[in-house]
């Protein structure tokens, strides 16, 4: 099992989902979870937690969903990012980058 410090940091799951959908195009829930685990490298994701996040983003109008067929021929719901979602992603990416660089500078000056 992955150590506790590799759990999803609070409030970042939505951003990860948006980024994944922006990069990969339409995906079902499993695909999104799988992709996040792969890209982040060993993040301990309770894959079920992806569903509240997906619903949240859909309610905000940043992603949309429709029924489709998965690789193994199962009915699955495919999510894709909307124009509003891309705008939001750009805004949050910028904010996130700025925050990270600020925190980094702060931490480096302290040491």
């Amino acid at each position, binding site marked *: 099992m992955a150590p506790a410090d590799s759990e999803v940091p609070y409030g970042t799951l939505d951003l990860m989902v948006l980024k994944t959908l922006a990069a990969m195009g339409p995906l*079902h*829930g*499993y695909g999104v*979870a*799988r992709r996040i685990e792969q890209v982040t490298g060993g993040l301990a994701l*309770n*894959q*079920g*937690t992806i*569903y*509240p996040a997906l*619903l*949240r983003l*859909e*309610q*905000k*109008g940043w992603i949309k969903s429709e029924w489709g067929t*998965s690789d*193994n021929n*199962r*009915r*699955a*719901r495919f999510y894709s990012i909307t124009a509003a979602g891309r705008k939001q992603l750009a805004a949050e990416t910028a904010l996130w980058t700025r925050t990270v660089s600020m925190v980094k500078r702060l931490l480096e000056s302290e040491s």
Partner: protein
Amino acid sequence: MTRLRVLLSRLLESPLRRWRDSRLDEEIQTHIELLTDEFLSRGMSPADAAREARRAFGGVDRTRLAVRDQRGLPLVDTIVQDLRFAIRLLHRDRTFAATAVLVLALGIGVNNMLFAILNAHTLRGLPIHDAARVAHISTLDDRSREHGLSYAEFRALREASAGFSALVAVTEQPVVLSGDGQAADRLGGLFVSGDAFAAVGGRVVTGRALNPSDERPGAPAVAIIATETWMTRYGGRESALGQAIAVNGIPATIVGVFDERSGFPATAGIWVPLPHLANLAAQTGADRTLRVFGRLADGVSFEEGAAEVDVFGARLARAHAETNRGVRVRAVPINERYFGRWNDTVWLAFMAAGTLVVLISAANVANLMLGRTSRRAREIAIRSSLGAGRLRVVRQLLIEGCVLAAIGGAAGLGLAAAGLRLFRSAIPENALPYWVNYAPDARVIAALVTASLLTVLVFALLPAVYASRTSISGVLKDGGRSGTAGGGARRWTTAFLAAEFALAIVLMAQVAVSLRQLDPPRAAELGLTQGQLVTASLTLAGDRYRSPQQRLELVRILRERVGAIAGVSTTSVASAAPMLGRTEVRIEIAGRPAADAKEQPTAGSVAIGPSYFETLGVPLLRGRELADADGSAAVVVNEAFVEKFLADGHAIAQRLAVAPAAGSPQQPVWATIVGVAPTIPQRPGAQEPIVYTTYESAPAATLALLVRMRAASDRVGATLKDAVYAIDPDLPLYRVQSMNELIWQARWNGRISRQMIYALSLIAMALAVIGLYAVTMHAVAQRTQEIGVRMALGARPRQIVALVGRRASGQLGFGLAAGAICTRLWEGFIPSGDATIRATDPTTMALVAATLIVVSAAACIAPVRRAVRLDPVQAIRHE
């Protein structure tokens, strides 16, 4: 924006829940299968793969819950739950629900009806586009009496004004419509300045409205007619446009048909350009007969417009000191001028009455609810113990209340509509101006919703708070009998019931009085209403009827011709038909001069032709009728006159001087009383002294034609009109109606107030009796166990009836006593006029009390039956 989206999609979730849930389940299913496939492909055994997949997913139920929490609005969800529960409960307890809805519908219905009347008379406004920007401009003289403007003043204002885009002058005057080959008719005429229709608006049915060019000197004379005139006179035919007519004898052409129930606050049968008004040019600055309206120009506020009018008035007063000293000109919003103020005492009383009725009905339902709440105490206690918060319990009861109030409100709206229809049908068509409209509008609906919510506050919130306070353990331990009204609540209930009965009794006493006063109609009225008596009006205007000789000649020919019509038994004329007014005269009786000229007594006066009383069907009490030959030497007086001025009863041969009321230089004329007539009212309800003089001695220009027929005929009107047409085609005979119709119309005011009292007292009685029913039902429910024990110990049904009846009759007794006291007080406050029967006399009171006792007893049958039919075994174990 995003927030709103989230709220909307969450709102949508509630009804879609079931469908969404299955969608989520399917998604989770697919996800886990995909995971399993993945683990299988890594070489795990199927069992291991399935277990690993579940672990990696991390809890299906938790996911479901997390998603569900995020979906929907928990508040909306639970409210929908509560709503369903409430409807189910009310459905189960149908007697309760039906009674509560009935009571609420009565209260809310009466309230809404009163509000609709208030609205129609004060708030509604004229059906004019943007009426707030239309001003009514008038003059106030040095004693602050309101007048119109003179033509000169109107023209000066129109020239000087910058703040008004249009200024309109209007004056009403009856006109004679003839010249189209039909019998002449007299209609309400409206003389209007040219741009009037453009400024005020209104609906042109066909043809065109008047416009400013019709006003120019030399323009062809035109007129437009009302829809009613179009229908009755020209059969609604298009060919009426272009029809040549004569308006007051002046030729004109009809160019349009106008909807008379739109536009101007005036009712008319025909509209004519203002310059056609006779003598307009000759009017002086002091002839202030024009009503003036102005529409404000764009960008001008009402205050600015009013200020401009004010300044104009001040300038006039300086420039024309001889006619305008102390005269101000004032502009007020047109709606303010034509509608009453809602905060007038009458309307405040209306609103107070409306609120009172709603509160009473709500308090009644509160009583019903209270009885039910204590029966439901156990259910509520269980809900509380299972974790329902106090708020949730209160909310549940409130939602039940809202459901009841919504149904009651809807039924109330129906009741109010029915009541208003009844109310309107009792008013003659033309007694109210067209813009008084009782149909519900947005304001009436808002008032309905407000009243319904108010009832919820009273009948649901209070019992709900009370119920939620009940202690859980107490109720559960007590086996459900706790949570009943204590002594305090019972006293409150009794007081409330007493108040309800008091109100009902005060109203019922008035009804009883008015029913007992319906004594047989007086002989005089019997004559008027028996057989076929037709009245009609004539106005002898114009050059042909200027001299008294000309008028008398016409009346002579008229009586001759009308008398010759088949089916007519007698005919006569008068200056005014019964119910249609009288002139006031000063009188002096020989040998009893007044001490001071100012204190000279006055009486009503009617000028009559020969065989007047015979035509009316009212025989004289003494003496003889007036004849043409009497001239001014003889008069007839009525009984009221004898009672008031000739107390010794000797009327015949007394000498009497009659002079016009104040201000006329005319000398009194001495005459001899030759007859005494019964008192025939000249105004609705008035029993006043009247002197009848001969028409011969002073032929008035307006007169009533009275015709007694041998048999009923619906052709009378047309036949009479034809007879007049044959004599003079330009002389209109108008207001042709039977005496019965005339009396019905003249009395509408009293009739409506009587009907209102009947209806209100019926409702008050219903509310009081339902209140008693509710309380008794409640008492039986509470004492079920006790009654069971008594029956098990051998109590007879009679004793059970006595047990239940004792409290009910006690409460009824209290109510009757309170009612008697209140009626007494009411009588002290409200003078009963000349009523011979008092509301507090023993017969009236006994009548009212007997009615209430019978109805109350009937209402108590159901609770008593329930008590008597209890099965002792079950009743003892009743929880």
